[in-house]
């Protein structure tokens, strides 16, 4: 692998939790290491509480690691930065701003002003197919549209790495499938590196170049997905033998993870 966009080296995270006047130490991550290459899509999958979201939040800079190194694009991660864009689980658009203004929000903070600001925001709104909804406020958008704006907002600041925290988890099956397809198209066009957290097995296989299966705060297995890229029609892919085989491999890894947990 030539260049690693993301490298997670021996990262641990311990939370202090106060239970009945006693401080309990909860180990959320135990020396987790993985790399993500340029333009690669890596999904983190595992049962809830396995540390996948914690890993993503540390990568984003919203949490700090108790030990270990996190590098993005050759730089040590210290807090949030414009080299990373985060897509939240429930979009988290600012309800008082229109779709367009929500995208402009991040760009403005990055220092963009004037005509360029609006044009750029509009271009990214167009990228997610919502040009006609520019002036709608979040409550006037469906769940899928909100998440599209969320993706556009994160992409607009042109980050090195796009981080996604179960972004399609709360959507209905049809909307989820069309957004998965759109995400792959957008990635093919923008060549973004993506780290995607999910608990959905199909989603992990459909999107990823590699799947990191996590369990109890550590990496259980890293599975390379040998499906062609571009993935083409996802419906056809779902019916293919290769998809079923890969899915089974990941399922077994997850199953193992669960068994050892109980």
């Amino acid at each position, binding site marked *: 692998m030539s260049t690693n966009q993301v490298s997670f080296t021996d990262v641990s995270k311990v939370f202090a939790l106060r239970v009945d006047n006693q401080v309990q130490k909860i180990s959320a991550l135990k020396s987790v290491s993985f790399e993500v290459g340029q333009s690669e899509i890596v999904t983190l999958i595992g049962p809830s509480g396995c540390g996948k979201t914690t890993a993503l939040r540390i990568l984003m800079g919203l949490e700090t690691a108790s030990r270990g190194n996190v590098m993005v694009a050759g730089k040590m991660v210290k*807090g949030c930065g*414009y080299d*990373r864009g*985060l897509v939240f689980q429930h979009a*988290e658009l*600012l309800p008082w701003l229109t779709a367009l203004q929500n995208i402009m*929000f991040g760009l403005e*903070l*990055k220092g963009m002003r004037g005509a360029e600001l609006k044009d750029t925001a509009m271009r990214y709104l167009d990228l997610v197919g919502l040009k006609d909804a520019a002036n709608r406020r979040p*409550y006037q958008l469906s769940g899928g549209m909100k998440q599209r704006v969320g993706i556009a907002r994160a992409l607009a600041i042109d980050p090195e790495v796009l981080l996604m925290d179960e972004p399609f988890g709360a959507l209905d099956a049809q909307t989820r499938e069309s957004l998965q397809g759109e995400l792959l198209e957008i990635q093919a066009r923008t060549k973004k590196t993506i780290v995607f957290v999910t608990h959905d097995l199909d989603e992990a296989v459909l999107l990823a170049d590699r799947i990191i299966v996590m369990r109890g705060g550590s990496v259980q297995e890293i599975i390379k997905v040998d499906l062609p890229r571009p993935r083409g029609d996802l419906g056809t892919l779902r019916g293919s033998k290769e998809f079923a085989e890969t899915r089974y491999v990941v399922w077994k890894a997850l199953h193992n993870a669960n068994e050892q947990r109980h």
Partner: protein
Amino acid sequence: MSPTSTPIAAPSAVSDEPVTVARETPAWMITTLSVVCVIGAWEFFGRGVDPIFGSYPSAIAAAGWDLLKSGLLGRALWQSMQAFLVGYGLSIIVGVPLGLLIGRSRTLEAAIGVFITAAYAMPLVALVPFLVLLLGLGFAVKASVVFLMAVFPIVINTWLGVRAVPKTLIEVGKSFVASDFTILRRIVLPATIPYIMAGIKLAVGRAVVAMVIAEFFTAISGLGGIIINSANNFDTARMFVPVIVLMVLATLLNGLVGWIERRVAPWQTEMSGRDGG
């Protein structure tokens, strides 16, 4: 055998089936009817009461017309409103930023939160003589009393509002590397507007009461002055005039704040839209 599926044509989304759209009585009509009933009942039963101990709407209206013609009511209203507007305006200017800061800073909250909560319950009537000693009998003391009554509900509501801002919205700001001040101004403040507006509305009633109290205790003037002078002359109908004026004024101010809220935070009314208004 492989599973089979039979496609069925989807029905058109536009239906020509008859629907009844429920027609509801508008809220303002209900309110008007309610007010008319109460005034009617007061007029009917009030006429039987000795005019020293009570009055009724038509007598109050006549007394009000006399006061208006003599120019006394207008002058008193203007005197009262000056103190009211200055005190109330200051309470918003001071209260909102203070509430935002206390809500955002753990240190400030621990250091001065307790004073704010205690001061909210302060028996202000008892403190007016003390304020008179400090500030004299003029305009300053009136405006201060209004300010002190109005500022705490605004601070407390704003403070509670800040505490209720979802953590994830703050993280949106952080993820775009926003400074604390930017997060306060561009995320916390707009997210807190419904709470701020509720505080500003609560403060209207308290500020009106404060204004009258101040006019009782200080230089007898303004609407409070008319109340106390009329009461001393056993002119009950005349005494009720400023009382009614103040009640109407508070209701109008509340409506105005509500209107401003719908203008500055239209998303809020839409999001929490109640069925049937």
